[in-house]
């Protein structure tokens, strides 16, 4: 399999805070990779880093990102890639669609190639149909569509230029389970149909397991565990992943209590010096308080935890 995206030791932040710390991962062609974690773990920021749309006060401090052979961090013509090679969809389609223009109008506007109006319209109607919408939607305004249909229109818009990579930021969180299920199956089918790779951000690890080939678990700006979806879900290694899976209500019978994660995600302004998960971790050793664990490869996975590997018991 060919590597499409290769993120190497990326650090994002400013003088005061680091919101992403030494992020490394790869996305192969036709692969779906999920990023999982609680709010404020840096999932969305990872996507914004890849597409280089970080807020003004943050920048990429070090590291390299290779996308299809191009090094993005130092690349200054992102507009050639953004929207063309990399598409993006968001959680609330209604706030990204312009209420004053028809869907057809907005999808057409996204076409970067210079082609005739008639051809544009044909192409838009074709893609709308492929997204499971009727051609009538071309003439409709966003408010006339349901949330699921709006999300399909957004996907159409992001795929109109045949991108190689789609960044999906919780695209189903605001939707009903039945509608969400439709969108997720659509995305899965698009991978083979469009030769597409997807980075899928979600806080639901069971959904991540269903949709993706690989799962990255993030905590406070660090990828604590990454590996094949099935393995990460059925046999999680990092204590955080284990606890995240233990929070799911479907793991419990009626009348039982859910084992939750004590405490909260630390604020990025005062992160613990060592492993960021150590204050909430039951396996905490002294070393965890002072050092951030490096990546260890075990059982086809990369884990950042002192529980694994040979460290002195102290």
């Amino acid at each position: 399999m060919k590597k499409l995206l290769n993120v190497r030791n990326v650090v994002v932040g400013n003088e005061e805070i680091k919101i992403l710390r030494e992020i490394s991962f790869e996305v192969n062609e036709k692969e779906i990779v999920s990023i999982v974690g609680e709010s404020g773990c840096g999932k969305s920021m990872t996507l914004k880093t890849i597409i280089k749309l970080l807020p003004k006060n943050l920048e990429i401090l070090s590291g390299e990102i290779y996308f299809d052979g191009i090094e993005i961090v130092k690349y200054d013509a992102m507009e050639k890639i953004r929207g063309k090679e990399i598409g993006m969809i968001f959680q609330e389609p209604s706030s990204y669609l312009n209420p004053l223009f028809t869907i057809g109008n907005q999808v057409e506007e996204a076409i970067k190639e210079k082609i005739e109006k008639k051809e544009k319209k044909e192409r838009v109607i074709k893609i709308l149909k492929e997204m499971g919408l009727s051609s009538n939607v071309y003439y409709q305004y966003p408010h006339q569509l349901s949330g699921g249909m709006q999300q399909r229109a957004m996907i159409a818009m992001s795929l109109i230029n045949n991108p190689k990579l789609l960044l999906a930021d919780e695209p189903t969180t605001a939707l009903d389970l039945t509608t969400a299920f439709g969108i997720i199956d659509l995305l899965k089918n698009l991978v083979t149909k469009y030769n597409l790779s997807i980075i899928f951000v979600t806080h639901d690890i069971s959904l991540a397991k269903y949709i993706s080939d690989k799962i990255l678990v993030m905590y406070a700006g660090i990828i604590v565990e990454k590996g094949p979806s099935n393995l990460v879900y059925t046999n999680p290694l990092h204590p955080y992943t284990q606890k995240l899976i233990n929070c799911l209500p479907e793991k419990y019978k009626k009348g039982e209590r859910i084992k939750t994660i004590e405490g909260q995600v630390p604020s990025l302004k005062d992160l613990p010096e060592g492993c960021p998960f150590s204050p909430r971790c039951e396996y905490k050793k002294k070393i965890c308080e002072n050092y951030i664990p490096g990546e260890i490869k075990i059982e086809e996975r990369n884990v950042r935890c002192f529980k694994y590997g040979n460290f002195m018991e102290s």
Partner: protein
Amino acid sequence: MGTLWKVENLTKEFEIRSEFKKIKVTALKSINLEIYKGEILGLAGESGSGKTTLGKVIIRLIDPDKGKIIYRDIDITKLPERVLRKYRKNFQIIFQDPYKSLNPRIPVGLTVMEGITGNKKERYEKAVELLNLVGIKEKRFYDYPHQFSGGERQRIAITRALSTEPEFIVCDEPTSNLDVSIQGQILNLFIELKEKFNLTYLFISHNLKIIRFLADRVGIMYKGEIVEMGKTEEIFENPKHSYTQKLIESSFAF
């Protein structure tokens, strides 16, 4: 178990004015329902199926067009608001979005105090006690809602609901805006509070995984009707209606 609520033939239509015409939407189609004391009744269905409307009509935040609402043998369908006030404190509602349901300009402690009766000192102490119960410390009594996280705000909304010592609470998707880890904490809290205060819940959610974990009985709504209703285990093991089957299938696919 006695019957706490009985709903007969409940119907509600809304009029939607679009550009030039009026469209009538039937939100509830002759709903019949009983809620027993001390149970958790789950209500599932997709958005627009009338779950929230039903919850609101039962506690008369919305008036129904037709039908009867009977609370403890009292027909409250047509009771004027001044008479209904007597009963109002017995039923409460917790909304989905804790960012919108708390007044941003009132310190959370005072929000909770509003529902409590007695002199000022008693009310303060009761509010502190309730907040402590859900895990909010006394030193944060005068903090404003924006200073709290989503999970904490939902805890405060729960405290406010408890402040009037209700026996029945409509929980309208109370965890769907929260992280999975926080969701677990809030669900545990709902169970603890139910046991402590002998509460009855109408728990509305589109997430069948939560419904199966929490509810004693479950009603499945589709286009304003309850298409299937029964004990949770029975519905999940042997769903009869095709819509229920579809809903369960898509919920447990992942």
